[in-house]
């Protein structure tokens, strides 16, 4: 590489900083630093003439490293980076410091000390800049295609959005028919409209008129040419990388040819096998060959392979007029390459039989909300009549019990969020149809947080539905009358009630769908403790996962009502489109790199990498070495902070760069106080320092700030090095433990700091000289206070002179 020529651009913010900092002294100091060939001073360098000076110096070949001390941080950094890139200098060859918020503002009462600190900051930036290297842009191919797992409303809606955008979409559903939980629910609250109503595709589907929404079966969505629907299918393997996942799907045989079946129903008439129909709450039976309801997709019968007698019977084969039945179908594996995967596996009801006092599964007249929904549905087993399953006679007295298994420390501690509204919906639907019915809802709290939900609740009360605040202790059965008795204490009236009921309806907790955990393992994404899929960030990236190109839609992250599910589905689709629409993934090479010669195959880094970016690769047919995927690496450096061989470097924050900056920052004190090095992460940690300066909070100038991408990059030796370089105290400032931008960086470094304190104590060094702080931007006051306290503590402890000496 050419000789390093550093240009230093010193902005005084239009003289606003000259009242505090002695710019003449600073300029003279900088000019004398080895490697500095160009020094400019001005009122601003992020626009106008100032920026032009910098651009000209680069274009004329005078400088090949840029150190900028600006007074308008952050945004000016971006503008300058763009400008120097345009001028032909890689923007990673720039080092940026903020003399206003990190120096002049917090030290305004000690101008001469602030000036000395400014020199140290500039020296640190210059020494680091000398070691900077350009980083290139990386491009990875990306397929404009998606796999959507789960054919409920979330999956269908996501698939439609993606298909509308021109993506090749495969929608897979583990059941033989699409629709998911919604298809069983019948109606949605608070509009009471059909659950099978979805937003129509905007694709050019012939003969289908376009309105804003349509029944699933006539929406035309199954006819979108670039949408491939696979039912009876599960994901069994996922390989590859974001933008190009190889997915293997196992398709269970349907035994009925979708292209031949004409839904004539002759087969069910001859089928001798009769089993309870799980789609209809087992309130009626179905045959081994069956269809859920006529309006499902695919409109094709299916044979339940677990009960069919196949060739021992084969009556359906004989009777089928179109020869659609094929008993010799085998399960097949389909592989597909997709750019992204959307998980839309939804949720299901908790098994209420676990709660012994409610006797679900034992008393036939104790049912769940979903079972009741099937009774209310005109297509359901009772044709829309709510009955007592024990005698199939209409149920007049109905008691509903909320929070069955949810908000219960024994089972699911969380609120399932939608069950109150579901029960109210059921109660009002029944009451509307049968005004004489007597309905009581036993609740802990009624939660009606959505728009219109409270009015829906009010309407239910006006209709005469009774609400009892209390969690029933037990359901009893009167053996003579066969009636059920619900024991409950009305907490508002402090009265013990025995509610007689023909039918008791439980509102069970909602839990993740079957196989969610396994799917998460196959794909390589995380689930929460409650079993639901973990989103990347609940507030900012609710439909993304930690794995690029893998998204979650709908109830797979937590139980959701239909409007929220729809919103979620659109969001997941948008994220997938954003990621893939250019057909390539472009990112900077801000990644870790492993030196194979030194990698000792200890296998620590693959475990600590939060992004699964490190894998092991065999070399010489025997030894393994760790390898970083530039595509998956997010550039945090947690692997660097782990590696016991120091075999890993972060390209944009190398150890030698950190060392050089640290030494420089500690080489000038200029105050009467003990030097403190504050190592801040570039996220919340550094932002907290910014905010203390912006708010002009004061702390002493002996505190020097060094920025790293994430505190996770730090190793124990860096703390020791800092002391050796002259720091009397070291502050490590990271994000909140649970708020680390790289997931585990703060958490891991907190442990490193704790271990170092134990070590320091053994060495005879006061452990309180080292401190870890976890902050967010708005806690600048905490930083200023901690800096002040650390200084006072060190003054009491006295000087640490013999550290590392002989």
């Amino acid at each position: 590489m050419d000789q390093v020529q550093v240009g230093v651009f010193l902005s005084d913010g239009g003289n606003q900083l000259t009242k505090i900092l002695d710019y003449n002294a600073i300029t003279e100091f900088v000019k004398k630093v080895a490697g500095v060939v160009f020094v400019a001073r001005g009122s601003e360098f992020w626009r106008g003439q100032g920026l032009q000076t910098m651009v000209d110096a680069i274009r004329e070949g005078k400088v090949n490293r840029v150190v900028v001390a600006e007074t308008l941080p952050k945004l000016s950094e971006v503008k300058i980076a763009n400008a120097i890139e345009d001028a032909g200098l890689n923007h990673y060859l720039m080092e940026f410091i903020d003399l206003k918020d990190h120096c002049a503002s917090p030290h305004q009462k000690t101008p001469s000390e602030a000036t000395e600190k400014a020199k140290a900051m500039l020296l640190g930036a210059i020494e680091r800049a000398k070691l900077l290297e350009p980083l290139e842009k990386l491009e990875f191919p990306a397929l404009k295609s998606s796999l959507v797992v789960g054919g409920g409303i979330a999956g269908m809606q996501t698939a439609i959005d993606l298909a509308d955008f021109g993506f090749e979409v495969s929608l897979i559903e583990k059941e033989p028919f699409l629709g998911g939980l919604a298809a069983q629910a019948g109606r949605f609250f608070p509009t009471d409209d059909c659950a099978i109503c979805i937003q129509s595709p905007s694709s050019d589907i012939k003969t289908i008129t376009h309105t804003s929404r349509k029944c699933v079966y006539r929406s035309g969505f199954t006819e979108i040419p670039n949408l491939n629907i696979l039912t009876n299918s599960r994901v069994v393997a996922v390989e590859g990388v974001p933008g190009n996942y190889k997915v293997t799907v196992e398709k269970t045989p349907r035994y009925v040819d979708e292209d031949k079946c004409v839904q004539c129903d002759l087969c069910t008439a001859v089928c001798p096998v009769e089993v309870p129909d799980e789609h209809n709450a087992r309130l009626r039976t179905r045959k081994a060959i069956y269809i859920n309801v006529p309006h499902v997709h695919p409109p094709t019968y299916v044979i339940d392979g677990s009960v069919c007698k196949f060739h021992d019977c084969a009556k359906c084969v004989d009777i089928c007029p179109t020869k659609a039945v094929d008993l010799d179908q085998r399960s097949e594996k389909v592989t597909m390459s997709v750019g992204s995967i959307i998980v839309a596996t939804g949720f299901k009801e908790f098994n209420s039989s676990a709660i012994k006092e409610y006797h679900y599964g034992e008393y036939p007249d104790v049912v769940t909300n979903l079972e009741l929904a099937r009774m209310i549905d005109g297509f359901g087993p009772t044709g829309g009549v709510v009955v007592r399953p024990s005698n199939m006679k209409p149920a007049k007295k109905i008691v509903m019990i909320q929070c069955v298994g949810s908000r219960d420390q024994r089972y699911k501690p969380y609120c399932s969020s939608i069950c109150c509204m579901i029960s109210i919906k059921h109660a009002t639907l029944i009451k509307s149809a049968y005004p004489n019915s007597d309905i009581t809802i036993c609740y802990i709290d009624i939660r009606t947080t959505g728009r219109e939900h409270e009015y829906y609740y009010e309407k239910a009360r006006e209709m005469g539905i009774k609400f009892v605040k209390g969690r029933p202790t037990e359901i009893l059965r009167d053996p003579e009358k066969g009636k059920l008795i619900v024991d409950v204490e009305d907490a508002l009236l402090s009265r013990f009630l025995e509610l007689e009921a023909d039918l008791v309806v439980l509102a069970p907790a909602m839990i993740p769908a079957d196989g969610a955990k396994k799917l998460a393992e196959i794909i390589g994404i995380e689930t929460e403790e409650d079993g639901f899929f973990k989103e990347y960030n609940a507030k900012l990236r609710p439909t993304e996962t930690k794995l690029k190109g893998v998204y979650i839609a709908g109830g797979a992250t937590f139980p959701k009502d239909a409007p929220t599910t729809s919103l979620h589905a659109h969001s997941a689709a948008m994220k997938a489109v954003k990621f893939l629409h250019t057909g390539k993934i472009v990112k900077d090479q801000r990644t870790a790199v492993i030196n194979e010669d030194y990698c000792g195959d200890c296998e620590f880094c693959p475990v600590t990498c939060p992004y699964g970016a490190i894998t092991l690769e065999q070399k010489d047919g025997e030894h393994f070495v760790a390898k970083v995927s530039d595509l998956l690496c997010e550039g945090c450096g947690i692997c660097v902070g782990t590696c016991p061989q120091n075999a890993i470097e972060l390209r944009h924050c190398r150890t030698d760069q950190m060392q050089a900056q640290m030494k420089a920052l500690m080489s000038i004190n200029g105050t009467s106080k003990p030097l403190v090095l504050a190592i801040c992460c570039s996220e919340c940690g550094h932002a907290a320092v910014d905010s203390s300066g912006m708010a002009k909070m004061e702390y002493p100038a002996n505190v020097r700030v060094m920025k790293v991408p994430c505190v996770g990059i730090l190793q124990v030796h860096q703390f020791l090095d800092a002391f050796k370089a002259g720091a009397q105290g070291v502050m490590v400032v990271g994000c909140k433990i649970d708020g680390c931008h790289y997931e585990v960086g703060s958490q891991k470094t907190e442990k490193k700091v704790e271990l170092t304190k134990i070590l320091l104590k053994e060495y005879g060094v006061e452990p309180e000289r080292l401190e870890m702080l976890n902050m967010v931007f708005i806690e600048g006051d905490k930083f200023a206070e901690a800096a002040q306290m650390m200084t006072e503590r060190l003054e009491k402890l006295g000087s640490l002179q013999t550290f590392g000496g002989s």
Partner: protein
Amino acid sequence: MEKEKLKIAFYWAASCGGCEIAVLDINEKILDVVAAADIVFWPVALDFKYKDVEAMPDKSIDACFFNGAIRTEENEHIAKLLRRKSKILVAFGSCACDGCVVGLANLWDRETVFERAYSETPSTNNPEGTTPKTLLEVKEGKLKLPEFYDTVKTLSQTVDVDYFISGCPPPIPCIIQTFQAILTNNLPPKGSSFLPNKSICDECPREKKDKQLSEIKRIYEIDDDFKTCLLDQGVICMGPATRAGCGAQCPNVNMPCTGCNGPGPRVTDQGAAALSAIASIATNPEVINQVVDPIGTFYKYSLANSILRRKVMKK
């Protein structure tokens, strides 16, 4: 004309003597060594005096293998003497390279070491409280003993060292390789080590698993399956932070590595490297508090060569 034989020397400073035995552990290969080289100085085995060395011309020894740390004035004097007389000076063994167990004395100073050694230990019978003195005047004249330093140093902290071969003692294959490199004048760049660049884990046959350290266990507390990585079983093993070369001898016989080969080539502080790695896989904060003796565990062989080098003594 027959090629002139090389002149080689061995010396032990503050050490246990194990490195001397390791030289003989190369078995019949020692015959190749004596065939190609004359041993001109080896206090443990041959009767040479310091004055014999002093009489040698500078750089007349082709290679000197120096084991032991620098604990006393005598150690330092001979280190400097042998440096002057030798073309190649090899820091041989953990004491010379990293200070080793001898270097753990840096947790104390001369005064406290003497207090312990000459007064406190249960086996000491020293009612007069006699301790070694550098200078003692008796009626026959002045008696001088080499000074006992406060701080143990490594060889390279004392003189310029050409090559390193660490280990307690150095691994036999690496010793053979070192001798061969010197005898055939096939030498790596100055400052190199004759141990491989990788870490012990690279040589360890144990199977690595998910590395979730939820509790630190002692070796007797586990039901070792003899197959799984000891760290995966909860035992602190220094393997990841220790330079390879020995073929993972200790884990092979079901004991954790304690780190005698010293740090990897890019690591300045072996203990800090190990602590960073261990902290990174700890699943809960309690694990940190289970580390009872950080220096004895993680700096057993490298304290004198670490960033801190010695304990800060409060007077």
